[in-house]
């Protein structure tokens, strides 16, 4: 890998992977290391690879220390902390040549750990912890903190920063603060006394994280729903979306409960299934509340019938799909972008939906708010399609900001007075020629009463089986989808703009693509980049497709779903689109993009891409 040579100085630029057994409390130790590095001003990216299981199965946590601020998985492991004997064999294989492996040498070092080209470091963790602490559970938990201490010494994490973090975590539990600090020192002091610290892979203070937070997308989206003024949330638990509703609920408990009366300004309903969850969202939205449901692929599959009703009867709804690996139950705790087409065309009949594609937690927050505005403005379901990587991993993001002048766009809702002035109200008449009709809310004025139905209806809202009347409404819905392009977020572009080669991508691929662009640029390969933020595609997408001769479509699914959507919905020639796909279930790294582009360009010498 040519990039490695460039990085002779590995200070603040390496990846540590922790191999653990799930249910042993390792998460807090791993988070402690990551947070401490972040507080030292060094950008970090955390990726959690966990099993669909509660206790006893292998789980990994990867911390990328990245002075360049890359968001993607690094794709190589420099330091492996092997705390799970069961996975030694595969863990040891993953360490890059010249890397380090740390293991618990309480038990004799297994032949499994043999490798000539890496440094294997044994630390008698269990032995030290057992001699110092009592209680089985306690020892298991503190062993994690002890290895965090070892790592802190090896990579030179500032102990003051760790101490401050522990103090914050255990502010109200002095006993725990005491034992955790002790365990941390146990590992730290051992390493200092017995190992050559620090390693060449080390951290030093930077100033690149000021004005940033570490947050996961589901928390950010849940917070966005609170800020957007959502009052009804309905859901059925499913990984990896569950923490979105957990977040909404806890923020509501903080911000939406009347201090005096204890009364709640919200309702969260745990439905009996996703069919019911989306039904509740439609009922609440129809009634004028901002309502949403978070789910994942299997939930969207179940919701399809109702989504079609919402599309046709023009009922707003906000649906978060935090995508996981399909088909079927697939790998519920792994990430993928394989719900793109399902969301874009959910339900039977001719349907098309507005879909937003956040690329990171920060966008989850802002797009949550935008989704409600769009749903009410356009009177239609709006999807926010993120994925497990964005939803459940901690990302470094710019501080979230809120414009206090923001007021929700409630769309075309007629008030009692406006209705009084009307001769007669008709639900589906296009009065403004933007294909968006006016709606009314129940309980406001009997003049506004209409009948919401999924059966054939004319523009007056009446039942119809007349072809012309039916088509008139259906054609307006097509025009309404065109109107949507005026409101959805425009794509993000990067690059000179006049390269012959381009990349189109979406969502959580963004980090990997940006890193790949840097690598390619250092190899004197210039490529433009466009990231779509929404479906329907806006004119910028069409122009980018037109203006580039070869376009790599980078996405995380097997079937090239974004590429399909582009060929269906734009004028692009199919042959111009070259797919780069990743569907392993792990977040994408830059390597397959760099390699894919180099390989293709080698076959296509006539393209002038070299600077």
């Amino acid at each position: 890998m040519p990039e490695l040579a460039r990085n002779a100085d590995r200070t603040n630029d390496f990846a540590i992977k922790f191999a653990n057994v799930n249910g042993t409390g390792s998460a807090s130790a791993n988070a402690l290391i990551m947070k401490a590095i972040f507080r030292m001003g060094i950008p970090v990216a955390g990726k959690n690879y966990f099993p669909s299981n509660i206790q006893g199965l292998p789980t990994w946590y990867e911390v990328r220390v990245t002075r360049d601020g890359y968001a993607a998985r690094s794709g190589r492991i420099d330091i492996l902390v092997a705390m799970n004997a069961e996975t030694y064999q595969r863990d040891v294989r993953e360490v890059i040549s010249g890397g380090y492996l740390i293991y618990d040498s309480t038990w004799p070092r297994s032949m499994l750990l043999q490798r000539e080209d890496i440094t294997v470091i044994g630390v008698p963790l269990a032995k030290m912890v057992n001699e110092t602490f009592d209680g089985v559970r306690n020892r298991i938990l503190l062993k994690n903190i002890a290895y965090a201490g070892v790592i802190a010494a090896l990579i030179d994490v500032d102990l003051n920063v760790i101490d401050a973090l522990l103090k914050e975590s255990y502010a109200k539990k002095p006993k725990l603060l005491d034992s955790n600090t002790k365990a941390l020192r146990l590992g730290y002091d051992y390493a200092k006394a017995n190992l050559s610290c620090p390693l060449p892979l080390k951290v030093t203070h930077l100033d690149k994280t000021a004005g940033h937070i570490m947050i996961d997308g589901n928390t950010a989206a849940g917070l966005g729903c609170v800020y957007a003024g959502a009052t009804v949330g309905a859901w059925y638990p499913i990984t990896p979306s569950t923490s979105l509703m957990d977040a909404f609920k806890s923020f509501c408990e903080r911000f939406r409960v009347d201090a005096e009366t204890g009364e709640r300004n919200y309702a969260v309903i745990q439905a009996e299934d996703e069919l019911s969850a989306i039904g509740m969202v439609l009922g609440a939205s129809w009634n004028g509340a901002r309502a949403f449901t978070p789910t994942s692929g299997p939930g969207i599959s179940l919701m399809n019938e109702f989504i079609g009703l919402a599309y046709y009867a023009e009922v707003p709804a906000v649906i978060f799909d935090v995508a996981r690996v399909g088909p079927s139950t697939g790998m519920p705790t792994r990430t993928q972008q394989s719900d793109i087409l399902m969301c874009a065309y959910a339900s039977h009949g001719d349907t098309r939906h507005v879909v937003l594609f956040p690329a990171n937690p920060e966008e989850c927050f802002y797009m949550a708010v935008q989704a409600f505005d769009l749903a009410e403005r356009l009177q239609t379901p709006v999807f926010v399609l993120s994925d497990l990587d964005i939803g459940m991993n901690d990302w470094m993001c710019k501080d979230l900001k809120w414009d206090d002048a923001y007021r929700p766009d409630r769309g075309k809702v007629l008030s009692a007075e406006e209705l009084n002035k009307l001769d007669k109200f008709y639900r589906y008449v296009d009065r403004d020629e933007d294909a968006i009709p006016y709606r009314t809310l129940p309980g406001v004025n009997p003049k506004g009463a209409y009948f919401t139905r999924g059966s054939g209806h004319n523009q007056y809202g009446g039942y119809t089986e007349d072809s012309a009347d039916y088509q008139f409404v259906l054609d307006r819905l097509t025009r309404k989808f065109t109107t949507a392009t005026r409101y959805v977020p425009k794509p993000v572009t990067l690059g000179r703009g006049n390269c012959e080669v381009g990349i189109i991508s979406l969502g959580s691929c963004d980090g990997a693509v940006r890193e790949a662009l840097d690598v390619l640029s250092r190899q004197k390969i210039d490529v433009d980049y466009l990231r779509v933020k929404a479906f329907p595609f806006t004119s910028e997408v069409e122009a980018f497709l037109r203006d580039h001769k070869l376009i790599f479509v980078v996405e995380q699914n097997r079937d090239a779903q974004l590429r399909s959507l582009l060929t269906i919905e734009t004028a692009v020639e199919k042959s111009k689109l070259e797919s780069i796909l990743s569907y392993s279930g792990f977040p994408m790294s830059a390597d397959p993009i760099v390699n894919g582009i180099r390989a293709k360009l080698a076959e296509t010498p006539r393209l002038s891409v070299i600077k």
Partner: protein
Amino acid sequence: MSYINKPKVAHPSLPTNALGLTRRQYEGAMSTLCAGCGHDSVTAAIVEACWGIDLKPEQLAKLSGIGCSSKTTAYFVAGAHGFNSVHGRMPSIASGAAAANRELTYIGISGDGDSLSIGFGQLAHAIRRNINMLYIIENNGVYGLTKGQFSASADIGTKAKKGEVNLTPPIDPVLLALSLGATFVARSFSGDKQQLVPLIQAGLKHNGFALIDVLSPCVTFNDHEGSTRSYTFTREHYHPVIEADFVPKASEITVDYQEGQALSVELHDGSQVILRKLDASYDPTDRSAAYHFIETKIKNHEYVTGLIHIDESSTTEFHTLNKTTKVPLNRLPFEKLSPGNAALQKLQARWR
């Protein structure tokens, strides 16, 4: 074609309610159901009931699933919003709507197919959640709209029009509701307006989930010999156990009933239902006794009708449990909902 409106010329001599509205003003679009369909009689009873309790038309929200029965929300109270959703899923629409605005009166109309087959789960969970609504099942033992297949409420031995005999046991919505803890459970017959109207009125006023199972014969697919949901069969096996009278809050209670034979239950808004027991042993406030009684009667092919169970003391209504603010959620001002930038900046300390 249900959007054809009936002429709304009010006759000057038509009686008006406290809002000055005539019965005609509680009607809806013209029914497109078969002539003689039981469902149309239920519609008529709903019109009468809403007029009688002076319900503001826009205060009502009408919800339904799919089926002949579910179409009927279009045929009453034209001044109310209606939502004809998808097959078997009206309870979730109602639950969401009721969550968003606790001030409206919700009426859900469903069929035995809509409620006891495809929508069984949603019905059960709406009962469990104790959504404040009146839920009417127009129960004809068949799927009317898809031309006469047996529904899950068809009795064993029922003969379909084409001669097929049903062998699987029925699901009884009344027993279901009792077992799930519904606080208002009634059964009636579409042809018995006298019994049905006060039941609907009381059900609309009840604070919590009120279920009325209305036997409503399908003249086209289930009104022949061998059917247990025909007009003749229903009339013969009709067993009114308890008669209900509804007394609005404002009226003076002068209903003639004899001590010991009658029970008056005050609803949460102060209005009353007066229950006249025809069966001296029957106590509608005792859920398990009610369950046992109905179960025994069903075995004898008797449909017990009237207000089978009521519990006005229950505190499990959805909003009560949720501690929702009194102001409907859909009317809360944005300032009360969005915490603002200062709060956001403070909150973010935890992610640094």
